């Protein structure tokens, strides 16, 4: 073994990632070469010195407050990009702890917002305005399953609207035709769904479907050409009501309920 070859093995030798014949040759060379052995000894000393480094431990309070600090940053990061929500269920994990507070706040905001801003068409009035498609309500599915599906489709729709880039506004009229159609279908389904969500423990879901209905109606009623400010209103409605968050929370709850008895996971996606 030559000196250069020996030197190239210093890092692996130092961290004991060398073995067998290679190690044997390495040791033989060191035994016979004063230069290499002195050099290697110095690096061993460096290693020992670096071993003396001690990480400083932050005070306990730092760890105690770690989640709170992070949750604050996470929440603002999430608000900044609803689109980056990777998956409803995972997202809900984050919000689980904050869910109760958020829901309350969102509820208040919904009330205030709509009291101040909207002459809201009721389901009855819109059924006159809209050619309402018959609701596909597979009787076999439980109301939970249908709600799950309903929330998922609503979520996709809302995310599409919220993430509609400003550059796309020129073609917005054409593109929104599909969204409007989906909204109308969802509004029509809402009536049936609300009727089926009759039990007291489904009260929250019923409320969510009602809240959604308001936003869906706004979308369904968007007029093709002059509705650019209107779509902004929809967006801010989605934002202010925290409706996406509410959908997430309910999806998480329903998924948990579903998981609980069988232990079998069934993905809504």
């Amino acid at each position: 073994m030559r000196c250069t070859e020996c030197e190239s093995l210093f890092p692996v030798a130092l961290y004991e990632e060398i073995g067998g014949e290679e190690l044997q040759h390495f040791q033989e060379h060191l035994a016979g070469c004063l230069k290499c052995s002195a050099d290697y000894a110095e690096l061993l000393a460096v290693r020992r010195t670096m071993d003396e480094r001690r990480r400083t431990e932050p005070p306990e309070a730092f760890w105690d407050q770690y989640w709170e600090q992070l949750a604050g940053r996470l929440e603002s990061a999430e608000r900044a990009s609803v689109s980056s929500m990777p998956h409803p269920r995972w997202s809900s994990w984050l919000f689980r702890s904050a869910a109760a507070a958020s829901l309350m706040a969102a509820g208040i905001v919904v009330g205030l917002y709509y009291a101040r801003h909207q002459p809201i068409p009721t389901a009855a009035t819109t059924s006159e305005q809209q050619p309402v498609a018959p609701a596909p309500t597979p009787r076999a599915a439980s109301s939970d399953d249908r709600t799950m599906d309903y929330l998922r489709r609503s979520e996709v729709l809302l995310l599409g609207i919220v993430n509609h880039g400003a550059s796309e506004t020129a073609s917005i009229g054409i593109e929104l035709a599909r969204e409007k159609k989906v909204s109308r279908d969802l509004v029509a389904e809402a009536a049936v769904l609300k009727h089926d969500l009759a039990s007291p423990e489904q009260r929250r879901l019923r409320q969510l479907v009602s809240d959604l209905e308001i936003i869906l109606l706004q979308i369904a009623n968007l007029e093709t050409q002059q509705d650019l400010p209107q779509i902004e209103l929809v967006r801010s409605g989605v934002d202010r009501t925290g409706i996406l968050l509410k959908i997430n929370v309910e999806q998480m709850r329903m998924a948990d309920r579903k998981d609980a008895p069988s232990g079998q996971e069934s993905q809504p996606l």
Partner: protein
Amino acid sequence: MRLMARDEEALVSEAVVAGFSTFRDVVEAHKKQVYYLALDLTGNHHDAEDLSQEVFIKAYQSMKDFRGDAKLSSWLHRITVNAFLDSKRKRSLRLLPFPESRERPAELPFRDERPDASPDRRLETAMIQRHIDEALEKLTPRERAVFVLRHYNDLILRDVGQMLNISEGTVKTLLFRALRRLQKELRSYRPEERGQ
């Protein structure tokens, strides 16, 4: 959409197996590990705190990139190192010097500081820490990343390469360069001269 759901499934099952039920649990279980790696990389509490939180935000936002075949902890390690290298890259692009450590380790109590140690011994320990920190600061970000992963986090060189997306050969070169630089920086300080 399907793929995303499956990837997340892998994570969910790992999380469930490990007894996690919420993202908060994931954070609670990994915060120290992520923070200490961030501390190894940045060298000061303030930046380590910042980096570690950035890591969890990134993790949360990029769950779809999580591959089920990797361990959650290695994935977080990878995000930490890459976020660190990214931040250094950005800083150097803006031609801003890396800020001086705002908190010297000596300002905080040492983890294993023995209360019975003499004042002399404690001063000496503080001096050693300072020397080491200063030496580490002389490494390039990549050298430092390789060194701390191998030396303080016990990752074998092959895994370090995978984490940094570089060949094992490059890892060895970087480690060697790091060691030589540390050797040079520590030359003024010899353990054997401390009468140990």
